[in-house]
């Protein structure tokens, strides 16, 4: 009996180890000589972020290539993709193999900040290009900024500054955070706390939950016990969906507390349904039903991805790939260094149907307008995917962290 007990412990530990390693499926194209321009979409293909990035991001990259004409000079443009499963070790291995063996020139998307931070460092070493539209952490353009990385679409400062500020101004001045325990969640909590405090509010406490948590009931009860007016959800994708669902189930709103989803995607709202999601404030760079151009893009995109409207992450993949190709064309050289391409990308103003006019700063931050929306009530919605109404347009210069406050070493002060 005693022996079994000990044996069991050993095997249990082995199992924990195996869980990490069993997940190493890679889908990379075979190695080839430099006969094409290769775009690698490194993303979460089947996990909690697969709907907001995943296969939709791959399609978005292909659309950008198609709109660019499919060729850069004489070189055909190829899109490859792989599943990083939200694990930094798997993501780094895939990125390294892509750059060293498979001749990938540019890595795009990469939701999950912990993976993105690892990839950004690798890309800098190899002097390739990283177009980050999936991750949120401001560290990518802050203390870990890189001359080879462009951060597109959104970041935790923009979210905090949009949603956080609006909620405090509406009277939600005491906060309790439910934070996904990794780089993104921590950055979002940090940036939102700063905004809450600066706007005269108070943070009463926080509870960290693991990425992809199965059950939020006990975390929500901790939040309830704090008596804070606002429960801030510093998480994303499937975690946000499950937290909002559980809050609904446990009647959190009846106790007088409100949820603030700090990063909410249209695919999350779709999964939740308007009945549960109505009234949420959210900050986004892209909503499909904003103007003719955004609608036209969404109409082309949706049929390719199970009739889902694109998220700002997927829009970011499209826009950043398009701008990258334009810059490379302007630069002329078929095999230019990553840092030189990014420098060219900074030089050229960007223009696309999703973000409109924008520009890239020295710290790698792509700046553009952001929008604060409110989720419609079921009665207000006229049809499928008619989910948001505009609360406020946030000008580009206000939306992102001002350069003079940046801690990025590339910013000269």
């Amino acid at each position, binding site marked *: 009996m005693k022996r*079994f*007990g000990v044996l069991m412990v050993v095997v249990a530990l082995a199992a924990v180890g195996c*869980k990490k390693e069993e997940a190493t499926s890679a889908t990379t194209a075979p190695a080839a000589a430099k006969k094409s321009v290769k775009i690698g979409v490194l993303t979460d293909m089947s996990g909690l972020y697969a709907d907001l990035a995943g296969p939709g991001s791959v399609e978005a990259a292909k659309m950008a290539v198609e709109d660019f004409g499919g060729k850069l000079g004489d070189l055909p443009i190829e899109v490859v993709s792989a599943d990083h499963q939200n694990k930094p070790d798997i993501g780094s291995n895939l990125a390294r193999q892509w750059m060293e063996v498979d001749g990938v020139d540019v890595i795009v998307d990469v939701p999950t900040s912990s993976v993105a931070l690892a990839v950004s460092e690798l890309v800098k070493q190899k002097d390739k290009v990283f177009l980050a539209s999936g991750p949120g952490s401001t560290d990518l353009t802050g203390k870990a900024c890189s001359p080879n990385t462009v951060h597109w679409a959104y970041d935790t400062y923009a979210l905090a500054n949009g949603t956080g500020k609006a909620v405090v101004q509406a009277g939600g001045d005491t906060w309790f955070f439910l934070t996904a325990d990794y780089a993104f969640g921590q950055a979002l909590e940090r940036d939102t706390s700063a905004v809450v405090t600066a706007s005269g509010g108070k943070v009463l406490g926080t509870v960290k939950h693991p990425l992809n948590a199965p059950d939020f009931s*006990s975390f929500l009860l901790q939040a*309830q016990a704090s008596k804070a007016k606002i429960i801030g959800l510093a998480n994303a994708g*499937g975690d946000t969906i499950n937290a909002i669902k559980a809050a609904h189930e446990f009647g959190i709103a*009846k106790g007088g507390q409100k949820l603030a989803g700090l990063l909410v995607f249209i695919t999350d709202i779709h999964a939740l349904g308007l009945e549960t999601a109505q009234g949420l404030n959210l900050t986004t760079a892209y909503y499909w039903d904003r103007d003719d151009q955004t609608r036209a893009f969404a109409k082309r995109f949706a049929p390719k991805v199970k009739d889902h409207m694109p998220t700002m992450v997927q829009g970011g993949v499209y826009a950043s790939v398009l701008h990258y190709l334009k810059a490379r064309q302007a630069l002329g050289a078929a095999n230019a260094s990553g840092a030189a391409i990014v420098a060219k990308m900074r030089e050229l103003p960007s223009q696309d149907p999703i973000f409109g006019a924008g520009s890239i700063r020295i710290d790698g931050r792509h700046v553009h307008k952001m929008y604060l929306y409110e989720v419609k009530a079921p009665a207000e919605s006229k049809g499928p995917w008619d989910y948001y109404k505009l609360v406020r347009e946030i000008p580009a210069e206000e939306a992102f962290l001002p350069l003079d406050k940046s801690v990025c070493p590339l910013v000269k002060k």
Partner: protein
Amino acid sequence: MQALFSQLLVGLINGSFYALLSLGLAIIFGLLNVINFAHGALYTCGAFAAWLLLEYAGVGYWPSLVLAPLLVGLLGVAIERTMLRRLYRVDPLYGLLLTFGMALIIQGAFSLRFGWSGQPYQIPAALQGAMDLGFMVLPYYRAWVVVFSVAVCAVVWFQIERTRLGALLRAATENPTLVRAFGVNVPRMITLTYGLGVALAAVAGVLAAPIYPVRPMMGAEQIIVVFAVVVIGGMGSIFGSIVSGFALGLVEGVTKVVYPQGSNTVVFVLMALVLIFRPAGLFGKAA
């Protein structure tokens, strides 16, 4: 105080799953001497069976609560008949390796077909809504989980400890040859016991489907804690596995209030302590 009560209640709900799963493990270990590492994967099978029945056959929650464990139980019978049976004469380590390998195969197969993310399963209409207990809002479905698990555990315990069938079963554990001499078909009894243990895992899986997203790794995440529960309760002790299942759920709940950071590790700390001071487990008999 309010926080303590509500966390205790959530702990009791988690404890229900621990108890059902550790009960199945304890029964299998008690009779077969097999450490069933596939238990978590079979729990996943139960949840997926319920989801598949609904998705492709339109079979709702209530029939699934019987059908899914039956189907997964049959799978268990097939596993015992074709594979596990061959390993009884060799070191128990081989049974463990076999079931561990099967767990990986089952998880891999589900993720290949359905991906890693969760499939949603609706709470049955009769159990939607919640009651206000004053200190917290308790969804009806979660109350049902606790009531049903306690009932299932009680019935199984009674069957094994207080009936003739149970007496034969326990006798076969001690001395299979002698029991066979009384005209009892011991191999069939062993097969059915494994089927029962597996079916219990599937029951837990069906119960879990409306609460946790149905996904390939759901069992692997639970099972590590459940093994700790079994070690604490005492390997092979039916009563110990039930009691320690519920108790450890409650301990986790208390830890959430007193020292939230420790709630993920408290079970393993207890396991370490039990192994040091009472290696046979709290309810186990020393070998």
